[in-house]
Each structure stands twice: as structure tokens, then as C-alpha cells.
């Protein structure tokens, strides 16, 4: 379910009304969990099994870590959940056709079976039995281990299951293709059948989120959650389920200790933030996307100007797409009374690549820092190992984005830049004149320009998946050819005015937003809360007009959903 659709608006209204009308915590949690499952199941109901699996495994693992005997959910209830999920997943092979038809308001084509043939059901039943036996058996086995071993066993089980599901659904075909490709290159012909599995939307986000829960319990930073319902809500919380921000348990679970309630000031502020996010997504990102697609569909032969233009437009598109989603997620959550932390903090105004990563996708970079970089040793090890740790973290961070080598290269590129910046800082720290220069206005401007150039190059690596095309783009980006070549680039096919106009509007408004933030500490959405109503009303009416005339005819999915 996309945020910018009528279905989502209906779901949101139902949830808001429910929160207003129902004061009992447990009922609120039940409704919100159900709404989150509807939200996620709208894509493909079968993938709810994965969320349920993550929730049940991490719930049990966390309780196992502290050897708690006070589960509020009976084990057979959890087992039942998993078996029902598994049955839906495996026994309804044509569910996507049924779901698509039902959403379109008609029955599927005649003859579409709704249940698997017996031959297809046997492995499914086998797997369900395995879940039914292995789950309780593993729990019982680990539970008898000595304390330290037991804690580790439960932690590793959680990590293996979560990463296993992620690896299977997201990376299996990628690794198989890469392995057969490499084997072919050295003359071994291996034939491995690729799996026809659809990538569950947002799987990387909720996998990281749920893993952080078990790790935090293991570290003793939080108590395990005794209610499976509350943990399931934490894992599946719909505003941020499919594209983050990746929530830490300590940022969310405490809010469940008392009933949620709507308040006028939070509703107002939330609406403003949602409006801002929606504008970023549909008026800017979706209007730029067609031109970016045209440029990068066939980049070979394009001039440097066109490649740079493509990179700049993509930079705006991905920022508005992703931060627009985050704004809407935060806005909805704010209306419920739960504050989700920011995920972007004006990253394009960064004057170094390190600063950029502190401002871009903050929840991921801080997750990687806390759960990967620091456990690897971080910067508390030898200098060379610090760089190795940095590189490993960024390479895996790159791979997190998608099962494609260009994301690995992108991660390596970012890791290299961060390492280079760290090295440079060591040098400049020893020179007081260099440090002084760096803070002058033109030193700052130069650092900003160079940082911008570096991340623009990075976006090329992120966007262009074919390595031949990518190499061409990088050459053109670095060795400027000073040819305009806009017409020959076929830009006419991508609604050039709309894209250029949206980009220009973004640059101006984002610049003003940054200045406003620097002076007052408020972004548009917050500043608007305090202005007199007539001014706000004028802005609302103006926004309605802008959305009416600028909303593209087809709703584009959010880029980060695929991750």
C-alpha cells in the first residue's frame, strides 16, 4: 500500500478514529498491529509470514536470553501463528493473482486454482512440520545450556534466522548468478536453478529493526518485551515498516506503556509534515523521475553535461523520494503520539563526506555504526584495522541496499571516501593554518563543492547498474567534454520542463528551508504551526492547487521500497 493512495487514506482514517475512540492499550495495540498487517499484506499477503516469523523468533530469543519464565503468549499460540502463516504462504500459490483480481474488484480468471496441487503441497506441509518441531525443540535445547552459552545460542539463532530469511529472499539469486558467472569465467559450467521469489517489500528495514531488538536485549540495554503483540507492533509498525527510519526498540517500545491519544497540536504538526513529505514525493521526485529514466536508459553517447544533469536530478529525486517517505512516516506517527527520529538532516549541505553520512539515512548509518562497526572493533583497534572495519561496514551497507554489484561498488566507494577523509583529518589536525583555512567562507564553499561533486559521482554508481554504462558515465563525469548535446540525448521524451521546473523549485525551497533551520531550528512544517491561521489557510489552499495541477497521473513507488 502506497502512502499516496486512497486505500492508505482510508486505512489511516480508520486507525485515527480507533485511537480516538478506544482508550484501552491492548485494543489499540491490536488494532495498530492488524492495520500494519493489512498495510503490508496489501502487496502480497504471503509475506506476512516473514514478519510473523521474525517477531516470534526474536520474541522467543529475547526471553530465552534472560531465561524469562513469564511469557504472556503461550508457545502453541506462536506456533499456531507460524503454521497459519506458512499455510497461507505455501498452500496458496496463486494468491498474487487472486489478490490482484480482488483489489481490482473482480474475481480472478476462470480456472485459477486457489490451493496448491498435492505435489506442491507436500514440501509445504513438510516445512510446516519442520517449523512445528524445530522451533520448540531448539528453544528447549538452548534453554538447558549454561548461562553464557545459552545467551549466545539464542542471540545467534535470532541473527541466523533473520539474516537467513534476508539472504534467501534478497540475495540468493544474486549469489547464485555471481557464483555461476565466476565459475563460467574460469571454464566451469555449473547449472543452478534460480529461484522465482519476489523480493518482500522493505525486508531489509524490518530485518535490521528486529535484529537490533535481540542484540539490545543481549547487551542488557533493554528488557525483553513480554507481550508478543507489542513486539509484533514494533516490528510491523506501518508508518515506517517498508522504508524506515529503522527504529530502535528504545525509541518505540516505551511509547506502548500507556495509551496513545490524538492531540490537536500533534495532529496539526503531523499534517504539516505529511504535506511536506507528500509534496517532496509527488511534486518533486515523481516529476523528475521520467527524465532521469530517459537519461540513464541509454547513457552511452551522452555528453558530460547530460550525465552530470542526470546525476544531479537523480540526487534530488532520491532525496525527495526517501526523505518524503520519512516525513510522512514521522508525520503519521506524530499524530498517534509517537515521535520517530529524523532520518535526514540537510545532507546536501554537508562539507565533508563524513558529515554527509551523519546526515543521510541517519537511522541506517547509526545502525551500522552500533551493530557492525563498533562490534568489529571500530576505531579502538590499530589504524589499518580501523580502515578495514570502515570498509567492511560500508561494503555491507552498500550490499544492504540491493542485490547488485553496483551497490557493493557504491559501498566500497563510500568506504574509500570515509577512509580518505579520516586520513585527511589526521593531516589537517596537525596544521593550524589548514584548520583555519577550512573554516573561512571560501574554504567552506570549496569543501562543500568538492563534497557535492563526490556524492554526485556516488549517485551515478548507485543509479547505473550496467558496468559498461557506469564506466562510460564515470569517465564523462570526471573528464568534462564541454558538449551540450541536450537534444541528441533524447531529453525531449522525458518531460524536460516538468523535471527542470521541479528541480529548480526544490533547490530554491530547500535552500530557504536550510536557512530557516539554521536561524530558527525549525523546518517549514514546524514553522507553519506557529503562523496565524489565515496564512496557514492560504498555504493549505495553495498546496491543494499545486497538488491538483502537479500530481503525476501514475503513482510512483518509493525507491527505497525495493531495499
Amino acid at each position, binding site marked *: 500500500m502506497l502512502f499516496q493512495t486512497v486505500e492508505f487514506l482510508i486505512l489511516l482514517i480508520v486507525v485515527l478514529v480507533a485511537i480516538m475512540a478506544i482508550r484501552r492499550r491492548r485494543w489499540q495495540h491490536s488494532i495498530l498491529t492488524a492495520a500494519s498487517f493489512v498495510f503490508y499484506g496489501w502487496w502480497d499477503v504471503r509475506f506476512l509470514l516473514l514478519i510473523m516469523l521474525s517477531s516470534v523468533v526474536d520474541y522467543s530469543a529475547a526471553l530465552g536470553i534472560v531465561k524469562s519464565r513469564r511469557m504472556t503468549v503461550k508457545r502453541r499460540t506462536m506456533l499456531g501463528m507460524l503454521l497459519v502463516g506458512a499455510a497461507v504462504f505455501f498452500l496458496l500459490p496463486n494468491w498474487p493473482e487472486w489478490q490482484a483480481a480482488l483489489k481490482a474488484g473482480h474475481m480472478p480468471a476462470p480456472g485459477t486454482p486457489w490451493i496448491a496441487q498435492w505435489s506442491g503441497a507436500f514440501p509445504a506441509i513438510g516445512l510446516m512440520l519442520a517449523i512445528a518441531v524445530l522451533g520448540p525443540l531448539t528453544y528447549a535445547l538452548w534453554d538447558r545450556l549454561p548461562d553464557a552459552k545459552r545467551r549466545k545460542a539464542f542471540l545467534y539463532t535470532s541473527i541466523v534466522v533473520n539474516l537467513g530469511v534476508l539472504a534467501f529472499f534478497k540475495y540468493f539469486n544474486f549469489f547464485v548468478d555471481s557464483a555461476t558467472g565466476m565459475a563460467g569465467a574460469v571454464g566451469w559450467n555449473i547449472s543452478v536453478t534460480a529461484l522465482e521469489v519476489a523480493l518482500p517489500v522493505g525486508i531489509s528495514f524490518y530485518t535490521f529493526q528486529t535484529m537490533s531488538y535481540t542484540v539490545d536485549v543481549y547487551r542488557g540495554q533493554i528488557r525483553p518485551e513480554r507481550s508478543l503483540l507489542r513486539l509484533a507492533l514494533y516490528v510491523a509498525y506501518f508508518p515506517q515498516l517498508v522504508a524506515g527510519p529503522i527504529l530502535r526498540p528504545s525509541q518505540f517500545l*516505551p511509547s506502548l506503556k500507556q*495509551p496513545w*491519544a*490524538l*492531540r490537536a497540536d500533534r495532529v496539526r504538526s503531523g499534517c504539516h509534515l505529511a504535506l511536506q513529505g507528500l509534496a517532496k514525493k509527488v511534486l518533486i521526485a515523481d516529476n523528475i523521475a521520467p527524465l532521469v529514466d530517459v537519461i540513464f536508459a541509454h547513457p552511452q553517447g551522452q555528453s558530460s553535461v547530460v550525465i552530470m544533469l542526470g546525476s544531479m536530478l537523480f540526487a534530488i529525486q532520491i532525496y525527495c523520494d526517501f526523505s518524503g517517505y520519512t516525513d510522512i512516516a514521522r508525520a503519521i506517527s506524530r499524530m498517534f503520539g509517537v515521535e520517530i527520529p529524523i532520518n535526514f538532516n540537510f545532507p546536501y549541505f554537508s562539507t565533508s563526506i563524513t558529515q554527509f553520512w551523519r546526515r543521510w539515512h541517519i537511522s541506517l548509518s547509526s545502525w551500522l555504526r552500533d551493530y557492525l562497526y563498533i562490534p568489529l572493533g571500530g576505531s579502538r583497534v590499530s589504524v589499518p584495522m580501523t580502515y578495514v572495519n570502515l570498509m567492511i561496514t560500508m561494503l555491507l551497507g552498500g550490499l544492504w541496499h540491493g542485490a547488485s554489484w553496483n551497490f557493493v561498488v557504491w559501498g566500497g566507494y563510500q568506504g574509500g571516501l570515509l577512509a580518505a577523509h579520516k586520513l585527511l583529518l589526521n593531516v589537517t589536525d596537525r596544521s593550524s593554518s589548514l584548520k583555519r583555512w577550512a573554516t573561512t567562507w571560501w574554504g567552506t564553499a570549496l569543501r562543500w563543492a568538492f563534497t557535492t561533486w563526490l556524492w554526485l559521482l556516488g549517485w551515478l554508481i548507485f543509479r547505473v547498474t550496467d558496468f559498461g554504462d557506469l564506466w562510460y558515465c564515470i569517465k564523462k563525469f570526471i573528464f568534462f567534454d564541454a558538449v551540450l548535446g541536450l*537534444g541528441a540525448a533524447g531529453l525531449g521524451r522525458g*518531460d524536460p520542463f516538468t523535471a527542470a521546473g521541479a528541480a529548480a523549485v526544490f533547490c530554491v525551497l530547500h535552500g530557504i528551508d536550510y536557512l530557516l533551520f539554521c536561524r530558527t531550528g525549525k523546518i517549514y512544517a514546524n514553522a507553519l504551526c506557529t503562523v496565524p491561521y489565515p496564512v496557514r489557510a492560504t498555504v493549505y489552499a495553495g498546496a491543494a492547487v499545486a497538488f491538483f495541477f502537479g500530481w503525476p497521473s501514475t503513482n510512483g513507488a518509493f525507491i527505497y521500497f525495493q531495499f
Partner: protein
Amino acid sequence: MPEPPTHHPRPENDPGASVGPVLLELARLAAPVLIGLAAAVAAQHWFVLPRLGFPAEVRRPIAMSESLDAGLFNKQTNTAVAVIISNSAGVEGVDANIVQQAAPEGWQVFNFSSNGTNQLETRMLADTLADAGADLVIWLMRPDMLESPRDMHADVTHAWAKGGFAQDRDWLGAPWVDNQTLQALSSGPWETSMHFRRRWLDELNYTMRRRMRQGIRTPAANDWVAPFNLEIELDGERLDRHLSEIASQMDAALESFNATGEGTGRSFITDMADDFAQRPATLGIIIAPTHPALSDQFTPVEAAVHNFLVPLGHRTGVLIGNAGGLLHAHHYADAIHPDAAGRETLSHWIGKWMPAPASVHTHPTDR
């Protein structure tokens, strides 16, 4: 073993739900939004769309409808009306004047081709022309039209709705069009207005595009004789690229090319021919010429189309012609559109192919 201490921060005290203020806040938000939307809808319907008109790509079908309503086919005594319909190959490739001169005496010839016309649009147009009094409707058909009918573009659907082409067409519906398209084909003026709400942006994009690209074809909306306006001729790498695009399109079309039964291109054309057998107007289908560079791919396809059409023609009275190999490479401006020389050759051929008016004035099933 004691459980580890909690680090959960204590949530702030919430004063609790207050329905009244929340609803008031939402109302204060919704009121200006609704006023803004109402103003935008009104501006679009009464100002923007009337001032800018429909997009250039869809003006021609609307103009066709208006011209027919205005009595374009008011026949002089002893003349019969022949109308050529096709996609851009017909727009660029047919000069109705030349056709008329080459045709047997007594024909008044029009070119109602329009860019991108697919099978569904062709049939709606043919029906409308027959209703408007055309005696002979000639479909200059690209061989790939034997594939399963393609979906209509949303803009085009609304333009055809605006022209009223879908009215009283009982064949429209499954399996040829889905409910959504059918709904759009019967949309009223308000729905059409709302559909083209980005019209002002389209206009600015179009202006910018024309400055950036050469050779954008926009046929005159109201010219039913000589609508062609191709400005450039492709050669070298650009021509090769265009040829390869057309070859790919043909490959895609071939996937459903030989399919028979419900919902296929063959059954669509059979249905159309059967329908025309019951009408006073005659339907003619000419296989359109294809570029010689694509002959390896197209010649067998043309032969298959011809083999399908000829028996159909015998059964239903549809006139069949094959101009597949008519033009040489120098007759083309690009991979698909004839240039001036190609247009002259093709138009002359069509004129010569046309029967005498008297032979189509009889009902085909009586012949």
C-alpha cells in the same frame, strides 16, 4: 538469574484524547484544502483547458468528430466518399489528392489517419465513418496489427471519448477493452477535464521538446487531405537505431500474431469484417509497405497476413490489397514513414487499387 535493568525512558504524560479540538483542527485544515481544490477544478474546466485545448497528439481524433458532425461528407451528386484510416504511416504516407486523382472517377477521398492509432481506435473510427456516410473505408494496416489488440493510452482514450466515438458501440467491452478503459471511453466533460489537469505542464513540455528535438511530427489537426508534416529524414546511425526499434516492436507483436480464438488480433479483425458485411459501407484493408531493410523479418509476416485476409475478404466482401513490398529504401524518411516520393508512389497505388464507386454502392453480400 535476575533480568537486566531497563533503560526505557519514561514516556511523557499525555493529557489524553480530546476529540473536539482534534476535529476542529482537521476541519480548519480541510476547509481551505477543499476551497483550493474547488478553485483548481474550476480553473481547469473553465479556463485552462478551453484556453490551451487538448494536447497536440490527441487533437486530430477530436477534430475528426467535429468535422463529421459539421457535415464533411456532404456529398455532391454522383460522388462517393472513400476514407483512408491508419496510424502515422498513413498520416505521412497518403496524400488524399493523389489518391483521388489516380482513383476511378467519382471518388472523393479523405485521409483520416492519426498518429499511434491502434486496432480499437481503427474500428471505432471505421464504424463512425460508416455511420457518417462513407462508402469505402480503407484501412492501411501495418502487418503487426494482427497481434492482440493493444491497450489505448489514457490520454487517447479520453480524446476518443470527447469525440464520441465509443457511443453505441456494442462490441466495446471484454475481451477487447477492460472496464477501466471502457469507463474512460464513456467519460463526460468533467472527467475529461480532470484527466487533462496537467495540460498546462504538457504544453510547456511540448514547447521545450520542440526546441530540443528536430522532427517531432504533429499532423495538422484539421487537414483531411494532406496532413503529413515530417520535417527530417534519418540516415546512418539514427536510421539504424530506428530500424532496430521497429524490428523489436515487430518481435513483440509476433508473440500473439498467430494466436486464434477469443481476444486475439485475428478474431478482432474477423469480427470487424463480419460487422462491415452487414453495413452499407465497404471495408478495404491494405497491407502497408515496410522498409526493405526489414524485409527478412516482414516478408513472411506479410505473406501470413495476406493468407489470413484473402479468405476473409472472399467471405465477407472486404477488399484486400497488399502494398507490402511497394516502396524502396529511398522512399522512406525513416524506418517506417514514407517521404514525399514514397507518399506519391503509395498514394498513386492506392488510387489505382480502388474499385469504381458503382461496385461498392451495392451491399457487399449481394455482390
